[in-house]
């Protein structure tokens, strides 16, 4: 548990390195976005799965080396990974 806490803190530090996260201009600052303001969100690198070839490889590695799988979506098939 202590290990989990330590890693969560480390992770939060990395993840929320865009400071002032909830203030306007921060990562989680909420605003109602109009359709013509979606230029940034339309970029390839801003998609939820921007590197499908790498993602597919990673999912296979971790499926065959860990017991917890999935979460991102449905489908993709099975694997008799040993």
């Amino acid at each position, binding site marked *: 548990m202590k290990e989990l806490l330590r890693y969560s803190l480390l992770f939060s530090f*990395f993840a929320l390195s865009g400071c002032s996260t909830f203030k306007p201009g921060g990562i989680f600052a909420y605003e109602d976005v109009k359709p013509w303001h979606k230029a940034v969100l339309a970029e390839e690198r801003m998609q939820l799965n921007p590197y499908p070839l790498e993602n597919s490889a990673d999912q296979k590695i971790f499926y065959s080396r860990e017991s917890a799988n999935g979460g991102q979506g449905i489908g993709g098939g099975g694997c008799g990974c040993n």
Partner: protein
Amino acid sequence: MQLKIKKLQSDQPKSSVRSALTVATCAVLSGSLSPVCASDEEEVSDLSKIGLSTFYYSEEERVSVNTTHVAIENDLGDDTFLRANVIYDTITGASPNGRIIPTSTGGSSIPFTSASGFSVNINDNGSAGKRWLTEFTDKRAAFDLSIEKPLTRNLRGVLEGNFSSENDFTAYGAAGTIAWDLHQRNTTITSGLGVLKETVSPASGTPLELGVANCNDTAPVLPSWETCNVTSPRFGNGQKRVFDGMVGVTRVLNQRTITQLNYSLGVSLGYLTDPYKLISVIDNSIEGEEVMILYEKRPDRRTRHSLYWKTVSQLTDKKVVDFSYRYFWDDWGITSHTFDYKYRYDFKPKSYLQPHVRLNLQSSADFFQRAIDSSVASLPQYASADYRLGKLTTYSIGLKYGKELGVNGSFGVRAEYIVQAYSGVDLPDMNALVYQGTFTFKFK
């Protein structure tokens, strides 16, 4: 399955005020079929994409995998897409089979000759004297085909069929997902269902679970619940049915950030045991020496849950962060926390470096045990010594370099270093290196 969250109302180029204005002016002038307006529309769609990847994974003294992946996306117009993936792997090496590692003070090793499956070659004493490893080679081919189509103005559906085949394993399945866009496409609700049928067919059939694989006749005391019957019966193929469901919400938080939360539920039924995995029976009165080897046994049902949260945010026009957390739990007692973080830095307009770190903390399954003590009164109902069901931590760190080639192509190379450490078991850490090269190309 690929369900790309719909980017904009149409495939708009980067400048959105300008493109919105083009659309607006064409609306005023459209009564007269302006050629300018007509040509603007035609540029946008009908680009198909092909992606190629070559991937090399290598564990120190264990398994190596070589994979080639071809991904094709065909734009059929009207926001309808046909996608296909073809993946071919070759796998060689040795994997821990669940037996304990002998202590340095020795003790005799029990030879293990099992009915060898085509994909599994058993050496008497395991790989180079390491009897806790089993060597094998395998080739795998997998294929999936999916179609994405708009159902109504705000509803999209994806239907997929998949198939994969290895020397001793076949799987096929289907899945469907629906995405519902709300709030001017700032919110998307996704929901999906998938079914999968898997069949494992070891060369001489599946073994008797918790049946004897081999034993040491000369051991002073054998457990009361087992006799050294080395001719354990074999059975037919192991069949498994898997059902998965998912519901998720994706939300645009601001002009630079999008976030997604998914809940998934999965049920696996049937033959969930790994027919190649073993568990040692040890006698503590003779320094934990292995006296017997049994086949493992897992329940015939597993219910899995996961909560997955991902956020992608652009900090500046050069920096994009992508981080996710997954909490997983199931009825086998396994829980897991997975943290993933990627930081993309575009040091030139079309080139980027992306470091990546990942951490996975997993607890062990209720029925996981490193070995069975020969002095217990009776066999447990289920037992597995498969390290993947045990308490482990996986650390990975990697770096990717990517570059756009002109308007329609891009390539990337990456390397990752993965370490997996085990708690409460005697296995040494696993170290692995990953190298991957990818190339994508758009064409008409």
